[in-house]
């Protein structure tokens, strides 16, 4: 058996519809969207437009022209932070954040532009709301938190945080890299001003496509200037969305694959797929609880959470365990710090990290049982 449990990094496999859509583009009409005006170019442009519309609908964003495509969540976060923050601004983040949030902000801090406050989180990976409320300052411009933790599997109460931000007249950015496509997100209802997503995880698209969705009249200055296919006679970059944040030919292949991924989610029902993945996750966690020497981390099994299991085995280095699983059992997981040293410090697994099983909508109960048996065998051999 081959069991892929690295879906929190990149989901695999992709629905056949994603492969078919990308193949159709590359075979039949792969022109630059909207640039040239001929039939292939217009067809590609229509697909890109439809994808912005379906993304706006998926996240209940008010306007599809503020769905900005980027290479991934990291790229989109950089667009948002560097285009929004100015000298003297204060930003609040949590101690579960990924390096994609931490590093661009630390860079701005190092340049003397911004100051950062870090809100503590529980050992299960849940944000301390009282501490968040006390972190606001007169110059606070932005609160940026993840929605779902790639390490602990917790889901933050984004609606509650959004309300707190609204009361403080501060913008709220949600990093939905792990949650977009897994659990419903409602930007307008939850007071999310800026939402960052990536296509290659729970949205079931290919790598290299992600984006930033803007709710309302928020000015983000571009850090990239160039060709847009619009206002071409002008030396200066256009100031209207989405063109102002998208210079250069966009990733049509990724966008069309992402659209097919979202259509798959909508056809099968996000809630249905979520329940399926959470049932597998809970089954896995409950089985692991019965095994001596297994240490489980993060969110409690029965909460509203992400479908991932973070664990270690006593006296086995996480990277060694991941290698054994791959080499001896064809079980693929991710060990280490998951680009999230802050989060691992919070849950108590820094610096060695942990082993993460990321469960996807194509995993099966048989695969989970196979993984449990593999872990039991590994533990037995190490006694």
């Amino acid at each position, binding site marked *: 058996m081959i069991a892929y449990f690295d879906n929190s990094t990149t989901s695999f496999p992709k629905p056949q519809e994603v492969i078919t859509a990308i193949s159709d583009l590359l075979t039949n009409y792969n022109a630059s969207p*909207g640039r040239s*005006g001929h039939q292939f170019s*217009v067809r590609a*442009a229509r697909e890109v*437009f439809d994808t912005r*519309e379906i993304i706006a609908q998926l996240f209940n964003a008010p306007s599809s022209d503020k769905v900005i495509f980027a290479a991934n969540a990291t790229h989109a976060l950089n667009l948002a932070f560097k285009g929004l923050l100015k000298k003297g601004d204060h930003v609040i983040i949590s101690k579960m954040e990924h390096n994609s949030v931490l590093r661009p902000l630390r860079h701005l801090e190092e340049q003397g532009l911004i100051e950062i406050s870090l809100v503590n989180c529980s050992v299960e990976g849940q944000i301390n709301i009282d501490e968040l409320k006390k972190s606001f300052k007169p110059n606070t411009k932005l609160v940026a938190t993840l929605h779902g933790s790639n390490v602990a599997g917790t889901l933050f109460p984004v609606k509650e945080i959004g309300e707190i931000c609204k009361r403080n007249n501060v913008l709220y950015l949600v990093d939905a890299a792990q949650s977009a496509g897994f659990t419903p997100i409602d930007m307008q209802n939850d007071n999310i001003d800026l939402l960052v997503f990536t296509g290659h995880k729970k949205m079931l698209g290919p790598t290299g496509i992600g984006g930033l969705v803007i709710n309302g009249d928020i000015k983000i200055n571009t850090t990239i200037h160039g060709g847009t296919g*619009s206002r071409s006679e002008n030396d200066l970059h256009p100031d209207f*969305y989405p063109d102002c944040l998208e210079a250069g030919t966009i990733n049509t292949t990724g966008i069309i694959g992402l659209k097919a991924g979202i259509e798959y989610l909508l056809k099968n029902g996000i809630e249905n797929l979520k329940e399926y993945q959470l049932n597998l996750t809970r089954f896995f966690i409950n089985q692991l609880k019965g095994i001596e020497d297994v240490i489980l981390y993060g969110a409690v099994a029965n909460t509203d959470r992400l479908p991932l299991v973070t664990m270690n085995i006593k006296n086995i280095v996480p990277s060694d365990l991941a290698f054994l699983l791959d080499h001896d059992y064809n079980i693929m997981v991710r060990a280490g710090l998951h680009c999230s040293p802050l989060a691992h410090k919070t849950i108590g697994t820094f610096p060695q990290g942990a082993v993460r099983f990321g469960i996807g909508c194509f995993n099966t109960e048989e695969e989970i049982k196979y993984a449990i048996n593999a872990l039991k065998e590994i533990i037995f051999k190490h006694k």
Partner: protein
Amino acid sequence: MFYKIFIFESSHKVLKADKVLTENKIKFDVIPTPKEFSSDCGLSIRIKESDAELLKVEAILEKNDLNFKVHNKEMK
């Protein structure tokens, strides 16, 4: 043949117009914006001047919050 050329603020707006006009079963073409018209966008929409549905088009665009300019052009 004489056409009305509809020009919009951005490619995104042209594509939105493309979508709503298609939904309303209007006959039109998406064309590269003719050089003689100043535009922010490389794509425009053309409709035959003789088309009986021309009057409906402006109403549909306005209803969907799409700002536009209209020009006349003879095309073979």
